[in-house]
Structures are given as structure tokens and as C-alpha cells.
């Protein structure tokens, strides 16, 4: 009896371990299946699940749209996307995915990267492995300084913020209140705006930082109302935070009492415009891309994107699109033989005709140089758009 009991425990553990090892072997073995061939592999590290699944949807959608327009073969090589899910700003996962893409999948490029911490975490890896890495979204200035193999096609926060400050001053605003989401990018936007605006002689008469998890904007908006500025510069997370903010802003009658709302384009994200509805009408924002941008490239992009996603694309999708454009260009120039240093040499100074307008990757900083547009939210044919009305040409990242 006792002996049996003992055997039993052993059996339980044996079975457990056996199962676990089998699981592991099966799971790990499926990894080894990728055969190297006449393909160029692009590993996309982005958010496919969780709260930020929208990031991945746009970035991957944009990348696929580019391949739809331009075919999946360049210089005789087939381009293959390998998409990996970080689940959010989780740098340890991002780093693991990057490592696996490099040593196991043997990718030629790494791309994607929705969040700054994810990009920063993989910097030492891509430097060590000499993998050209295209930042398709993450927007903190310092990113490109962390690895010589980083190139960015998206934007930096100061880059889009500064033109807003300049435009506001030009329009005669002198007293402005800033409201930002209480996290790194928010702090950066606050600093960039304040720096640019006060340098010209304007005054920031109040600053508020709103916690990320706050369903209630009432008290913050009330403080603004009490401070009576001429305008508010706002930077909050796109999504429900932007929606909640806009609603409160209107409900409390700030728009009616003549306090103009200025923001960057991430807040007036094209994808959430219809969710914002009338609340956002008349809001001025500065950004590199609007769905309403009038150009043939944009038309092509929108047509291709709609094949993958019934919803509207946004600037992240354009990041994905242009990132692939840059990669295609490199493949073409190097005739399919990808080498880290040569690829970076091609990327430096590369010019692209993007759906957002002309862009260039700065030869010195590997950061994007692009037009920044000032736009106003208008209702066109029953839908809401950011309509561009003024352009700041070839803006570099002032954060460097």
C-alpha cells in the first residue's frame, strides 16, 4: 500500500515532467522550421494584443498595404513579414522577441516598435547584431541616439510640438495653459511646447498633468477654465483619454468661452475622429499626417489599406507603410544582399515620397525630417477629418 503510494507520487511527477518536456520540445521544434531561402525577412515587433492592439493593427496594416501596392518581390527576393507580439510596453518581451528574430529567424531587418521602452531595450541587441532597425512609431527623441542601427520614419514629439507653439504665437496667442498626460511623452510634449513658446515671448500660465488611468477630467478642465487662458495646449493618449478630455472640454463650455484648443495630431488621431464626433470640431493640431492629405500617394495608400482593415488608418499605419518603403529601397539598392552597415549607409539621407508628403531620413541623426501641417477638425461628407491648412516645411527634430 505504502509502496504503491510512493510509486504513485513518482508517477505523477514523471508524467508532469514528461508532458512539460514534450510541450517544450514541440513548441521549440516548430521554431526551427524556418528555412532560409531566397527571401528577405523583416521581423516586426509590435503590439498585437491587449490594450494597445490598435498599434499593431495600424503598423502591420500599413506595412502590408505597402506590399500590396508594390508587390512582395524586390530585386528578385521575396519579402516576408514575421510579426511578433509584445503585448504592450513590455521591454523584456520586446528584447526576447528581438533576440529570437535575430538568432533564430535570422531576419534581415527589424521594424515596428510602437513604444519607446521597447525600442530602447533592443538597442544594444541590434547594435551587437548589426541589424538595420526601422522605428515605425516610437516617438521619444533620444531613441535614435541609442544605436547606430536605428532609423526612424515616424516622428518625434518635439518635432510636431514646436510648430504648434510657433503657429500659436504667430496667431497672437500669448497666454497658454498646457495639459498633458502624466507620463514620459506627456512630460516631453509639455517641455517642448513650453520651451518653444516662451522663447518667442509667450507665457505658459498653468500646467496640468493628468494621470493615465483617470476616467474623470472634470477637475483638470475646471482649473483651466478658472485660469482663463487664451488657448490650451493638450497632449493626452489617443483613445478613450482623448475622447473623455474632448467631451469634458466641450461640456464645460471652454470652446464656447473662446478658449482655443491646440494639440498634437496623436490626440486628434484620424482613427478616433468619428468616435470624437462633434466634440472635436474646430480643434487645431499639428502633425505629419492626415487621412485627408491630398496626394496620389495617399490615395494609393488608403485604397490598399482598406483591403486589410475596414477602419480608417492613422499616422502609425503610415509609419508602417513608409518603413516598408525604406526597407524596399535598401533591398533594391543593395540588390538583395543585406549587410547591416551598408544598409544603414543607404538609409542615411534616403528620401521617400510618403502618403504624408515628402520625407527624408537625416544623414546625421538617422531621424525623420518631414513637413509638419497645421490642421483643423472639420466635418466633410458626414465624417470628421483633420483638414490641413498650413505647412511647416522639412522640420527636423529640435530635441537633438
Amino acid at each position, binding site marked *: 500500500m505504502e509502496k504503491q503510494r510512493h510509486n504513485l507520487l513518482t508517477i505523477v511527477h514523471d508524467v508532469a515532467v514528461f508532458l512539460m518536456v514534450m510541450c517544450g520540445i514541440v513548441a521549440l521544434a516548430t521554431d526551427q522550421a524556418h528555412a532560409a531561402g531566397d527571401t528577405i525577412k523583416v521581423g516586426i515587433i509590435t503590439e498585437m494584443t491587449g490594450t494597445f492592439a490598435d498599434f499593431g493593427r495600424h503598423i502591420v496594416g500599413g506595412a502590408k498595404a505597402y506590399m500590396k501596392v508594390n508587390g512582395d518581390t524586390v530585386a528578385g527576393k521575396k519579402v516576408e513579414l514575421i510579426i511578433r507580439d509584445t503585448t504592450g510596453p513590455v521591454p523584456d518581451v520586446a528584447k526576447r522577441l528581438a533576440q529570437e528574430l535575430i538568432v533564430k529567424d535570422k531576419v534581415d531587418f527589424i521594424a515596428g516598435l510602437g513604444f519607446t521602452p521597447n525600442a530602447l531595450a533592443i538597442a544594444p541587441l541590434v547594435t551587437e547584431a548589426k541589424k538595420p532597425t526601422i522605428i515605425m512609431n516610437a516617438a521619444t527623441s533620444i531613441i535614435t541616439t541609442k544605436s547606430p542601427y536605428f532609423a526612424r520614419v515616424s516622428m518625434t514629439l518635439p518635432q510636431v510640438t514646436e510648430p504648434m507653439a510657433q503657429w500659436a504665437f504667430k496667431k497672437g496667442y500669448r497666454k497658454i495653459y498646457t495639459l498633458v498626460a502624466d507620463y514620459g511623452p506627456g512630460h516631453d510634449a509639455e517641455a517642448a511646447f513650453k520651451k518653444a513658446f516662451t522663447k518667442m515671448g509667450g507665457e505658459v500660465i498653468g500646467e496640468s498633468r*493628468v494621470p493615465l488611468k483617470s476616467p474623470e477630467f472634470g*477637475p483638470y478642465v475646471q482649473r483651466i477654465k478658472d485660469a482663463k487662458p487664451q488657448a490650451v495646449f493638450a497632449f493626452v493618449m489617443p483613445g478613450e483619454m482623448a475622447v473623455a478630455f474632448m467631451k469634458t472640454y466641450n461640456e464645460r463650455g471652454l470652446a464656447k468661452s473662446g478658449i482655443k484648443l491646440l494639440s498634437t495630431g496623436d490626440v486628434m488621431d484620424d482613427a478616433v475622429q468619428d468616435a470624437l464626433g462633434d466634440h472635436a470640431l474646430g480643434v487645431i493640431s499639428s502633425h505629419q499626417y492626415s487621412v485627408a492629405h491630398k496626394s496620389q500617394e495617399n490615395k494609393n495608400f488608403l485604397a490598399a489599406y482598406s483591403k486589410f482593415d475596414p477602419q480608417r488608418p492613422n499616422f502609425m499605419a503610415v509609419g508602417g507603410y513608409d518603413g516598408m518603403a525604406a526597407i524596399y529601397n535598401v533591398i533594391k539598392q543593395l540588390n538583395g544582399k543585406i549587410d547591416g552597415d551598408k544598409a544603414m549607409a543607404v538609409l542615411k539621407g534616403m528620401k521617400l515620397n510618403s502618403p504624408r508628403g515628402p520625407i527624408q531620413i537625416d544623414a546625421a541623426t538617422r531621424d525623420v525630417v518631414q513637413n509638419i501641417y497645421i490642421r483643423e477638425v472639420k466635418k466633410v461628407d458626414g465624417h470628421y477629418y483633420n483638414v490641413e491648412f498650413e505647412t511647416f516645411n522639412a522640420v527636423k527634430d529640435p530635441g537633438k
Partner: protein
Amino acid sequence: MLSLLGVLFDGLAYGALLFVISVGLSITLGLMGFNNLAHGVFAMAGGYLLVTLMSKAGIGFLPALPIVFCIVAVGSLVLERTLYRQLYKSTPLDQVLLSVGIIFIATAGTTFLWGPGQQPVVIPEWLSGQYSVLGLDLSRYRLFLMAIVAGITLALVFGLERTRFGAKIRASVDNQRTAESMGIRVERVFQMTFALGSGLAGLGGALGVDVLGLDPNFAIKYLVYFLLVVVVGGPGSVFGTLLAALLLGVADIAGKYYVPQLGAFIIYAAMIFLLLLFPHGLLGRRKSK
């Protein structure tokens, strides 16, 4: 002085919102003792139903509300029959896991059906904007919410204290065996209670989306807030939930207005503080042996 009154109004209004989204949980958790973390799923269902009813079926905001309540209540019975019922007597941990599973499936399902983005919610013209009363600007929608809260509170307190059904619920909760021996069909009573709690969750979700927004992560994003209010109030006590909601609402708004630097901390700190003072909730009953 004026700003103080304004802050107080905002706080109470925010409290009203917290109450509306949490009271359903207070019922399932407090009366039935089921740790239903999937409360937010019913709230989210309410939100999506409202949006769909209004945009696809062209039903107005007000008439849509009772429809949402009924559909969610009836729909919840399906889940009650198939899943919840089996775990009424399980440990809290099992109940938590089951309901977290439901949240995950609901999140994936909603993403599949509606996409991951924010849903637009349009409330009628007469509910948007503010009334100006004696120099104070009072939001119409918030006033509307407060009226609804008063209505729900009265209805629940009356319903639970004064009606036969209420008596049956209390009897079933206090002692299942005795209730059964008195001829009460406890199972049926629990079903009805569950439907009531879920219906209220749906209604709360529908009323809340204008302020909280609506996307597939709704259920998990606001989970903390539902629990916070209910646990602080003392599960099962409608008044406790109301009191906790108003208290936390005012504390949060006042804190954010007067000390905005600490905005993110206030509600959690208030919760921990209140729970240390009242481990069983403000008006919670100690579980008698």
C-alpha cells in the same frame, strides 16, 4: 466658495457615475457572495448594445436604456445557467478565475465583432452642455445621472427591504437551507438576483460610456473601479455602495482640483485608508457564523 461648491457638485456627480457602474456588482457580490469580476463584461455589453441600438436600429437614448437593461439581464441568465451556477459554492479564487476567463473571451469577441477602436456614443442634445445656476455651471448629463442614481437607490432599497421578492432574497442569502425549508426556491431567487445585478451592470455601462468611452478593454480597464467602490462600501449594502461612491468621488475630484500633482494616487490611497479603517466595508456586515 463658488469653486468649492463646484468641486462638490463634480465630486458627487463623479460619485454618481461610480455608483451607477458598480451597484450591479454590489448585488451579485454582496447578496449572492459571487466574486464576479466579469461584472464589467455585462457593463460593456450594455454599452455596445446601446451604441448598436442607437446607430443601427435608430432607437433614441432614453427608450434604449430599459431595453438594454432587459436584454443584458436575460442574456446573463444564459451564462448563469451554463457557467456561474456551477461555482456558487466554490472558493473565491475559482470564481475569480472563471470570471476572468469570461472577461478574456468577451474582450476577444468584442474585438472580433466591433474592432478594437473606440465606439462613438452620441447622447441627445438636451442632455449635453451645462445649466448655469447661481453662477455655478452644472453639467446636464451629470444631473441626469444623479437623478437616475437617486431612482435606482430608492427602487433597490424599497425592492430589497419592502417586497416579497426582497424578503426572499434576504432569506436565501442568510440561510439557504432554512429558506428552502420555508418553500423558497432558492435557485430561482438566485437566478433573478443575478439577472438583476447584471441588468443593472448593463444599464450602468450604457450610462457610463459617454464619460468612460467604450472599447473592448472596457471590462478590464474599469474593473478596479467597480471593485473599489463595492469593497469600500461593504458588499451587499446599497447604501454602503452609494456612500462609498460619493465619498471616493468627492475625494478624487477635490484632490485632483486642489492638489493635481497627486491626482493619480488619491483614489487608491483613499481606498487603502478606508479599508484599513473599515476592513469589512463602510456598511458591510461581518459574516455571522
